[in-house]
């Protein structure tokens, strides 16, 4: 299932300020690259030893390619961004538990925020039933056209109002009176918490994709835990974002 591969870089270009698209060629990764799963990218510069977890944005079975979208936020992603076509990169994948496609009754709401938007694309491609997509960005929206290919409706909000609705994604949902019976979301923690609260209020089932700093990426080191509700006995327990997640049921997560 999980393998360490040397994948060759087909493309690695800036698609928005500070946002890069990387296309990797790898049969193995494509086979296991379900929506919501992620891969570990190794920088291999001698100095940065830990892998960078990046979600799978899209897989292409024909081309055997994996599409990743990442933001340059620190030294590791900076080094990724200067890698060139035809170079090889060490990748471990596919990792984690993805979204459970088909859990609802066919009325899907998909909510993405910022760099949490890309992991939802393959999901929207694979979801069945109706799909309403709400995307929020600080400025420069990305992937909107891609989502439009697969979704019934795609609504965009930007905080600076440069495109679409001016405001955050929750306000956008309110404006459009979002409805459905299953919700999927990925984005910054405050947004996810607000989405979870909204879903609870509206009694909608949902799945959220979380982020945490990681080391192994496969569940062995316990650095990436998040608080989750325990079924019996104790009030809460730690689960591993890398192995038990990154996708969790919305009622599982305890917001610290």
């Amino acid at each position, binding site marked *: *299932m*999980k393998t*360490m591969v040397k994948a060759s870089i087909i493309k690695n270009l800036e698609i928005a300020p500070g946002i890069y698209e990387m296309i990797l060629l790898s049969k193995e990764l494509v086979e296991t690259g379900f929506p919501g799963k992620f891969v570990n990218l*190794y920088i291999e510069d*001698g*100095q*940065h*030893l*830990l*892998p960078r977890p990046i979600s799978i944005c899209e897989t292409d079975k024909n081309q055997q390619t994996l599409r990743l979208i990442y933001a340059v936020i620190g030294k*590791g992603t900076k080094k990724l961004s200067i890698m060139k076509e035809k170079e090889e990169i060490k990748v*471990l994948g596919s990792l984690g538990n993805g979204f459970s496609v088909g859990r609802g009754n066919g009325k899907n709401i998909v909510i993405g925020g910022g760099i949490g938007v890309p992991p939802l694309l393959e999901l929207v491609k694979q979801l069945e039933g109706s799909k309403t997509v709400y995307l929020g960005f600080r400025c420069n929206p990305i992937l909107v056209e891609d989502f439009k290919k697969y979704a019934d409706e795609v609504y965009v909000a930007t905080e600076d109002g440069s495109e679409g609705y001016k405001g955050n994604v929750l306000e956008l949902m309110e404006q459009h009176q979002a409805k459905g019976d299953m919700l999927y979301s990925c984005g910054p923690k405050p947004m996810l918490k607000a989405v979870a609260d909204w879903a609870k209020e509206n009694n909608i089932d949902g799945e959220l994709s979380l982020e*945490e*700093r*990681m*080391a*192994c*990426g*496969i*569940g*062995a*080191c*316990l*650095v*990436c*835990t*998040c608080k989750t509700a325990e079924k019996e006995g*104790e009030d809460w*327990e*730690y689960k591993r974002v890398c*192995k038990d997640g990154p996708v969790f049921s919305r009622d599982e997560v305890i917001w*610290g």
Partner: protein
Amino acid sequence: MIKPSLKINIAGVEFKNPVMTASGTFGSGREYGEFVDLNKLGAVVVKGVSSVAWKGNPTPRVAETYGGMLNSVGLQNPGVEEFVKKDIPFLKQYDTKIIVNIAGKTVEEYCAVAERLSSEAVDMIELNISCPNVKEGGVCFGTDSQMAEYVTREVKKYTKQPLIVKLSPNVTDIVEIAKAAEAGGADVLSLINTLTGMAIDIHKRKPVLANIVGGLSGPAIKPVAVRMVYQVAHAVKLPIIGMGGIMLGEDAIEFILAGATAIAVGTANFMNPRATIDVLEGMEGYMKQYGYQEMKEIRGKLL
């Protein structure tokens, strides 16, 4: 050419080779079992187990540093009962030795885990004395020679398996602590645990770790680890399991030459899930290259 034998014997236990996993970096072997054949390892040393479940520290629990990493997992574990139920049966499927690392906040807690495990199919117990001693004001058992000797002696009463005492490197004189563990009845010593360190996110102006400080591991610490193994090997008679920054077979050989009988691979697993096997093969390669037949030909044998 005859294939070299990497077999070793530590405190009466036979290991097929000196390659072990460093506690806390390999879970109970399940996850890395997808990448390596656990049957090939000398031993699986499992993550720290305490008498009751510990929740560990808040996240973030990891920070990357130059050639290393800091962790502040805080010994999260489901407690010894859960461990015995789930992990021992899993590990018994494999032809490898099982070493259980145990943790406690009081001497009584350590003893309770040791006693509970004494009747289980566990080959050795590794006493992690880097835990804070809550009864004595949080000072770590491993940084005070009297406490180190005392906890070793007490735990020894409750364990039936050979007892490894795992030393903390955050001390002025590692030899003093090693001798204390020896005096307390340790059968084996393992070293080093992590060096206490800290990293700051200068953009957020906050420590990276929620716990502020954490344990430094990885290749960055190897020179400190090799030094301590060398010093301890020259001061006590007990066999030593060496660790700290081992990435390659060559690193492992350094520890063996410094005097270690076995070695453990920790942080390297995170970079390379097959690190244990790569280290093993690298060690075999070295033995072959120089025509050594057995580990004892090189153990502690600096010219």
